């Protein structure tokens, strides 16, 4: 068995102690219940207090479980809450870009589309909410894999299948791209998921700066890329800016600080 860290074990035992039976305990009760010197117990309590896991009652000086622990327990952001917050911003994104806008979250080793805004023209389009897209080739999937460690570890388990001729199937090459995604703050896909279709995505963060999803626009390669000049064939800077603006606005709405 791997070596364990004693102070973490003691911290865990202390939290269990505060969680059970008597809700508020004084320093000497805690020290004697755990068989520790008062100074050791005090050090543990102060550290946990700084992290918000323990609180000290001002009047009695006794200790109890902190609010941060409760938040930890139900901190996951409901995807429908995420959609409700993203609604106006993704409408704006579709209007400003002239392309369809999406909101995706990590789900069972893929990207679940939780919101979709139609391209603002009069063409027939079908709502794609509920569709599951691959992680390794879509712009949404690459953003999630680059920012969310859970997505990244799920990606490591997946086979990198060639969805089109342009899909990156070499793991080392994909990892290099994910580093690039983190460096510049967005991901692109040029025909790697559907022939002739391009996509740009950027991450959405919650108030603890955790990546909770990603927004994207998707459209024909011809409309999404620069024509002519040095940047010929590259994704349009105007659309990249629009996607990143949208992601920042949703993040701000969720309480993430400026970045």
């Amino acid at each position, binding site marked *: 068995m791997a070596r364990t860290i004693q102070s973490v074990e003691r911290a865990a035992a202390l939290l269990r102690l505060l969680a059970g039976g008597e809700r508020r305990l004084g320093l000497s009760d805690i020290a004697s219940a755990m068989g520790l010197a008062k100074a050791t117990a005090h050090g543990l309590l102060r550290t946990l207090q700084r992290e918000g896991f323990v609180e000290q009652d001002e009047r009695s000086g006794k200790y109890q479980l902190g609010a941060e622990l409760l938040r930890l327990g139900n901190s996951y952001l409901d995807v429908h809450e995420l959609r*409700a917050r993203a609604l106006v911003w993704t409408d704006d994104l579709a209007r400003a870009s002239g392309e369809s806008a999406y909101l995706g979250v990590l789900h069972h080793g893929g990207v679940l589309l939780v919101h979709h805004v139609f391209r603002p023209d009069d063409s027939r389009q079908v709502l794609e909410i509920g569709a599951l897209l691959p992680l390794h080739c879509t712009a949404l999937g690459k953003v999630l894999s680059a920012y969310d460690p859970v997505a990244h570890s799920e990606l490591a388990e997946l086979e990198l299948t060639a969805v089109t001729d342009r899909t990156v199937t070499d793991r080392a090459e994909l990892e290099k791209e994910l580093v690039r995604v983190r460096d510049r703050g967005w991901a692109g896909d040029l025909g790697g998921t559907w022939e002739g279709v391009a996509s740009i995505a950027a991450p959405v963060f919650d108030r603890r700066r955790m990546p909770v999803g990603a927004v994207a626009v998707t459209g024909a390669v011809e409309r999404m890329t620069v024509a002519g000049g040095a940047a010929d064939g590259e994704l349009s800077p105007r659309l990249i800016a629009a996607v990143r603006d949208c992601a920042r606005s949703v993040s701000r709405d969720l309480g993430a600080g400026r970045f």
Partner: protein
Amino acid sequence: MNAPDTPREFIAAIDQGTTSSRCIVFDRDGRIVAVDQKEHRQIFPRPGWVEHDATEIWRNVQEVTAGALAKSGITSDEVKAIGITNQRETTLLWEKATGRPVHNALVWQDTRTDQLCRELGRDTGQERFRRATGLPLASYFSGPKVRWLLDNVPGLRERAERGEILFGTMDSWVIWNLTGGPDGGQHVTDVTNASRTMLMNLHTMEWDREILAAMDVPAAVLPRIGSSAEIYGTAADGPLAGTPVASALGDQQAALFGQTCYAVGEGKSTYGTGTFLLMNTGEQPVSSYHGLLTTVGYRIGGQRPVYALEGAIAVTGALVQWMRDQMGLISTAAEIETLALSVEDNGGAYFVPAFSGLFAPYWRSDARGVIAGLTRYVTKAHLARAVLEATAWQTREIVDAMRKDSGTGLTALKVDGGMTANNLLMQNIADFLDVPVVRPMVSETTCLGAAYAAGLATGFWAGTEELRANWRRAAEWTPRMDPALRDREYRQWLKAVQRTMGWLDEES
């Protein structure tokens, strides 16, 4: 996006609502440029009484107008027209010479005229003025509220008869003040607001002498009835001095207009705490025998008025709030969808939220809420399904009543309001109605409607076809429910509705 050489031109819409006043500036494509908003006090002098301080409201309207202009960074001469939309039926009387309200405004929700309405019904009951006005005698509408003020504010009736007092709904109050107040302000209302006073004849679009006599309201207090899209006057001072005031529409009619429901059979539904569904019925008023209201949809300048049927659902978003606040089954409104999606169906449970009786099309005040079909199998997730389905089935009941009254079926339902964020609910509505449900890209359809009407009146937009071209579909839900299953579920729902009736004893 505007090219640098195209002139910057905008329309400002003022929405004087029940809880707040807002100003939104729109560009030529109908896109939002800036928003400002300010809430006002809700005054509850007694149970069932709801009032607003009209002076506070006018101050807020001025503030948000200046605020929206400042945020957008545009100058007043770039604003080509001002449009007004407002909470409907809320009633105010003020002094012509000073602009001072003689009493707080009586808000549409205020029920102090219940008894008066019963007296006015005499032997005929609720339907006494239905043929002329399209409305049942109920405490929402302005006429009985005017009568209450005349009866209860000392000396008011004599002053009103001498022509010293003006009556208006909030559109009139805002327009009169905007165009100069005591100093030449225009005393005018539009056909949509006038159609909610219970004093206007729907067929002539004029104040109805017989009803005025029956309600004992002197004609001297009444504003001129204008169309919904015409230049009533120009702003006298403030940030928009010199700008034409060019539209007025009640909020639900403004949403109908903003959703570009310009053809017979086109309808919109606004999903909030409650829900309002309006359907365009064309140039003839359609009488309702199924508990709907007949109302004016809009009238553009000298064109013929366009009528609408209206159905209201009292409890929709409020039921989700109830699940959150009273039952504690969810922590945010959006979570109702997560909970509902954790099961395949309603598990046999049906939830009829007749919290204060059944409204359209039943109008049974003796009904109370029911959850029917409970077994040990039913979980909170099934109830979450039943909650969303309740909104969808109630929409279906209103749409059915509209079809029976007008002979016109709805071809598609345009939706707006907060609950359109709920994908499962929107799919349920499409499935239960068996018509596509469509969400537009601009969710602020009420303000947009007021802006559109003002833009039409001033030639900013050429016609309704141009406005239709501005309309953008953000999402569309297509029906995909098995018809046999739909019929079976609807029968179950209707059975559950029957269970709610007669719960209250007659004497209570």
